[in-house]
């Protein structure tokens, strides 16, 4: 699964809500986003949120 997948799997092992949010720059190739979705799904994440309103998460 790789290091990032193993880390995510560990994080989500004990969580009831298996949700992840992905934020990516507009000029990123989709292949990288697909990799993230794939790894998250394989790590047990059930819902993936793709953030589209960058302004909304600026205060995070």
């Amino acid at each position, binding site marked *: 699964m790789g290091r990032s997948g193993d880390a995510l799997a560990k994080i989500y092992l004990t969580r009831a809500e298996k949700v992840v*949010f992905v934020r990516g720059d507009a000029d990123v*190739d989709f292949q990288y986003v697909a990799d993230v979705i*794939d790894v998250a*799904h394989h790590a047990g994440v059930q819902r993936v949120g*793709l953030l589209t309103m960058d302004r909304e*998460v600026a205060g995070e």
Partner: protein
Amino acid sequence: MIYCSALRVRRMGGSELHAPKTHKISKVFCSIEASAFAAVMFVLVMVMMISESEPHHGFAVDLPQVSHAVSMSGVNREDAMVIGVRRDGAVYFGAERVRSDELPSKILNRLKKRGVERKVYISVDRRAWYGTVKQVLVGVHSAGIERVAFLADQPRRASDLR
């Protein structure tokens, strides 16, 4: 740059924000979470294309390669809603070239047909910009669709390249 964050939805501890647990911090965190859901929240999966033949939807893309894609028969249905995003940013709904802001009306129109699955399959070229995909997702979300599957290929083995 891609950021992937795992947020606690119910148990939002202050320690995650490197601050003491206070009611105020929790409220701020909640509002971020709510706006994230208001953006685009999907049940997303990567779907493996099983068929090697020419797709029936009329546009050609070089699909991303992922390791854990699942197979779904729905994508091969004749009435499946398939959106294409080509490398040059062109967007297709089925075989028809459309603008992203036309997608909600196209989807709602298709949903009027009996038996159409309330799910959208998106076929994105691996080198297409994510910004274009975001615009498509906003359109899909506006039509009330919550289930989205991205089409993918499995990585090629060295033996396949010989």
